[in-house]
């Protein structure tokens, strides 16, 4: 193995030679090929082994109306003409955020990358360099496109800020583990900072990368001098810091913004006296999210089990109705209680599991920082979810049945997932010896199928003691044996031990304690249960649901007073007390609604500010929850469908409307943000809700309102449509074909009252 020296900057050099800022440097491949070739040749003369084709931003998404394939082909051709040993197809970000952070879909991004990869490979590139990536999901998307459309080696580099994270919050350990698991041929960092400032990031990468490490820093931090951007590193200071990186085990080195052939010459000179350092990297058993890595082989990790409809009526109803907020609450509560990983299972016969798993996974992973354990036996659902997951997921699970192995293992392999092997096959294991035999067979079979042993976690299978009291002991013994003899991590679904028994939590806690002593790595449990927190000794926290953001309710009297003050504390007790003498409907119509009207009127007059109105709605919601507890699930159709229209991701206003409508007792189906017209139409066809509320913040997305309303009318919708958002006016609302204009949340409530309660606005 020898060092591989890359070139330095292209864009900043072309700008110095007259390319205007904001213009596409890649167009020079067609208009100024001699200039591009001269830059490549200068790098080759300076000692670069690999030159990077001038294709960084050549993407059909950005270069609309241009012949991107030709630009890429010419870029590669010019680079090859430089005489370099290798030519890298240069690929970078779309410059737009992928869903759920932005509005660019994974599939659209993938199609663009696939196009680029095929064009580069056809033109004769020797490798693919995916660089300057901030979004780990986009990097994954590009890496998959490269792997699935070419045979070329793929190097991936992320860009980090001064705080050691990308703009989207990914740390180098998380990126490194995720990208290595996905099969990158080299991983590392480019751009970002100067070489010396990047050393801490590079050190982390070298500790975890199981493939070669590549580093291409800037020539220092850019700063403005006069009207020019300048960089502070000299070729000598740059090379000196790069030498330290080589000592850490970096073997692929080059430059980024602000560097030129002199920097590469200095680098080449320095590396001449060095030999590549071999790194000894421990392969961890890990799972990652976009922003966090959890090591299952370092201390006990708790896997939260609450996102699973089995035995949970409310969660089941939320999944069927598409009430993602309910699931997100469950996710947040588990994170706050101290869970390390969240198990996610949406398997219900009533829903499309693949579509729902992906939708919920996206929402959960954009709300909490924890890695997700995808829990499904549906091959299609797992494949799609693993593909779109940002990070290294855990798959729960595969067993020794051939059909399970054949279905699940290729997915885990392709997407670099950590895979739970369940001790189960054609027979049900009862003893620890039988479990251990399955565990051994699973480790052998999975490694034979090219899953690294560190990516295998064994579930020793918990069976209830209700039918066989030896099961607790046998399971714990199996955990001990698997841990000690196979050297892999273990998980257990703890609460299964007490199925069909009374006093379940005590049994579960005792079993948990026993298994932890046996070496259990990761119990799957409800992290909100106090009995588990005791056993886990401070690992779990008592969930504090009180908020410091409370209004002074000291003078509040009765339900009305509490709503008016926005004082949440005490409302549940007050409602319970009221229900002793009044019907729920009397409490709603006699207490909640008048109080909400009163605070709403004060808000309209400017006597209270918006958070006070929202707090009143929160108080009412909490009171309503008391009334709903124990009542049968409400399976009536929604009164209102809400959506932020296609192209718009500003949904705060819509969420305020939702909150207030719900506090008035309306049943709301929230379709979310960036919602295509077809989804709104489908929701109406499914529910026949009498009112549809659409929101848009910007002038550019208001046309989506019109197309959505037109589509609803064309589909025969009889629903009234109300629209709202910062740029809308009464007139504008009429122009897009809406029936009502909701100036604010209060106005929308009045519209709902007029339509649904047949009052007048």
């Amino acid at each position, binding site marked *: 193995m020898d060092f591989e020296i890359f070139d330095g900057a292209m864009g900043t050099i072309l700008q110095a030679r007259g390319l205007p800022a*904001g213009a596409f440097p890649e167009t020079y491949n067609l208009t100024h090929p001699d200039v591009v070739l001269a830059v490549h040749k200068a790098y080759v003369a300076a000692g670069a082994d690999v030159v990077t084709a001038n294709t960084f931003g050549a993407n059909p998404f950005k270069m609309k109306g241009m012949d991107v394939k030709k630009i890429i082909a010419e870029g590669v051709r010019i680079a090859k003409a430089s005489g370099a040993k290798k030519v890298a197809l240069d690929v970078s970000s779309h410059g737009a955020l992928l869903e759920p952070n932005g509005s660019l879909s994974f599939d659209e991004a993938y199609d663009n990358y696939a196009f680029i990869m095929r064009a580069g490979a056809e033109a004769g590139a020797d490798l693919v360099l995916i660089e300057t990536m901030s979004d780990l999901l986009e990097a994954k998307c590009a890496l998959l496109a490269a792997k699935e459309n070419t045979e070329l080696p793929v190097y991936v580099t992320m860009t980090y800020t001064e705080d050691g994270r990308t703009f989207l919050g990914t740390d180098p350990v998380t990126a490194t583990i995720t990208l290595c698991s996905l099969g990158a041929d080299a991983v590392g960092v480019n751009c970002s900072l100067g070489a010396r400032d990047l050393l801490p990031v590079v050190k982390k990468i070298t500790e975890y990368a199981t493939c070669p490490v590549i580093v291409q820093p800037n020539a220092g931090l850019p700063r403005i001098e006069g009207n020019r951007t300048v960089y502070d590193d000299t070729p000598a200071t740059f090379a000196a810091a790069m030498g330290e990186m080589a000592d850490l085990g970096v073997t692929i080195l080059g430059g980024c913004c602000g560097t030129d052939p002199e920097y590469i010459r200095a680098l080449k000179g320095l590396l001449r006296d060095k030999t590549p350092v071999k790194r000894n990297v421990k392969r961890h058993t890990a799972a990652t999210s976009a922003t966090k890595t959890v090591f299952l082989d370092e201390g006990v990790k708790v896997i939260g089990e609450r996102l699973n409809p089995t035995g949970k009526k409310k969660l089941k109803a939320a999944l069927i109705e598409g009430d993602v907020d309910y699931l997100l609450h469950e996710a947040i509560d588990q994170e706050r209680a101290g869970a390390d990983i969240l198990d996610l299972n949406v398997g219900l016969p009533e829903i499309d599991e693949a579509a729902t798993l992906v939708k919920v996974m996206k929402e959960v992973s*954009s709300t909490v920082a924890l890695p997700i354990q995808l829990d499904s036996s549906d091959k299609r659902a797992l494949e799609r979810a693993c593909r779109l997951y940002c990070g290294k997921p855990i798959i729960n699970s595969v067993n020794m049945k051939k059909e399970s192995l054949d279905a699940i293992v290729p997915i885990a392999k392709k997407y670099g997932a950590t895979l739970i092997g369940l001790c189960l096959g054609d027979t049900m294991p009862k003893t620890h010896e039988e479990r251990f035999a399955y565990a051994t067979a699973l480790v052998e079979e999975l490694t034979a199928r090219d899953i690294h042993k560190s990516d295998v976690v064994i579930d020793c299978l918990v069976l209830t003691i209700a039918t066989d009291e030896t099961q607790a002991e046998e399971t714990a013994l199996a955990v001990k044996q698997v841990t000690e003899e196979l050297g892999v991590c273990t998980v257990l679904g703890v609460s299964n031990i007490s199925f069909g028994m009374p006093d379940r939590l005590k049994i579960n806690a005792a079993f948990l304690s026993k298994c932890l002593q046996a070496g259990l790595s990761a119990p799957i449990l409800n992290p909100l249960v106090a009995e588990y927190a005791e056993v886990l000794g401070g690992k779990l926290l008592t969930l504090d649901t009180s908020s410091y*953001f409370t209004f002074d309710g000291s003078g509040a009297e009765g339900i009305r007073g509490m709503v008016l003050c926005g004082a949440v504390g005490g409302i549940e007790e007050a409602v319970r007390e009221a229900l002793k003498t009044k019907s729920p409907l009397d409490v709603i119509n006699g207490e909640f609604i008048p109080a909400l009207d009163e605070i709403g009127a004060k808000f309209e007059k400017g006597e209270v500010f*918006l*958070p006070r109105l929202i707090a009143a*709605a929160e108080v009412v919601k909490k009171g309503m929850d008391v009334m709903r507890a124990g009542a049968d699930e409400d399976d009536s159709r929604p009164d209102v469908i809400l959506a932020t229209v296609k192209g718009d991701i*500003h949904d705060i206003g819509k*969420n305020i409307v939702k909150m207030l409508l719900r506090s008035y007792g309306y049943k709301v189906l929230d379709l979310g943000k960036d919602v295509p017209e077809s989804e709104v139409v489908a929701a109406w066809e499914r529910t026949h809700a009498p009112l549809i509320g659409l929101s848009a913040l910007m002038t550019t997305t208001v046309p989506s309102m019109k197309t959505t309303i037109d589509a609803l009318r064309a589909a025969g919708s009889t629903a009234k449509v109300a629209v709202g958002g910062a740029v809308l006016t009464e007139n504008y609302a009429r122009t897009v074909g809406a029936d009502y204009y909701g100036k604010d949340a209060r106005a929308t409530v009045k519209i709902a009252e007029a339509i649904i309660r047949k009052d007048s606005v």
Partner: protein
Amino acid sequence: MLEERVIRDALRYLGGKADDTEAVALLRRVFETHREVFVPRQVVAIYPLKDKFPALTFDGCAVTLVGESIKKHFDEATEGIFSAFTLGVAFDRRVRELSLTSPSESVALNALGSAYAERKADDLLKEVRDRKEAEGFRTNFRFCPGYGDLPLTANAEIAAALGAAKKIGLTVTAEGLLLPIKSIVGVTACVPV
């Protein structure tokens, strides 16, 4: 002081009264509690004005600004300060999480973010404006796409010229929307005195 100005602005955005001491105290507490997600980043570049007809163009920069409003903004100007500012995605995520767990707090934080972005972007831009004024220019205010008849599509051009995606993580959607949400892109004119 920045904090006081931000709280005052946020209170106004939320329809509150300046003498509502409870509201001010709550906003201050929210601001302090979530301070770590206010991570301002700005990128600035200055380009000489090349032409004003039929649209504004600049030397060394591939941006074309159309409309009468921007022409008026650049009346007698010879240079433009291009700026892009963002608070980052962590702020958006926090607002989102709070919208589920503490909606009133989320609304308050969102308003504080808007107010902070405006004020902080002004403060950061002031350093550049002071420099230009020391060089003998008069500078006006930051004119943003969406003002007057300057289309939102100009966001993408300005952001590209500044390398905003690469340098501060600011992106523009196909509809011209800025992401992260608390972001500002604009142009300030420099008029020789």
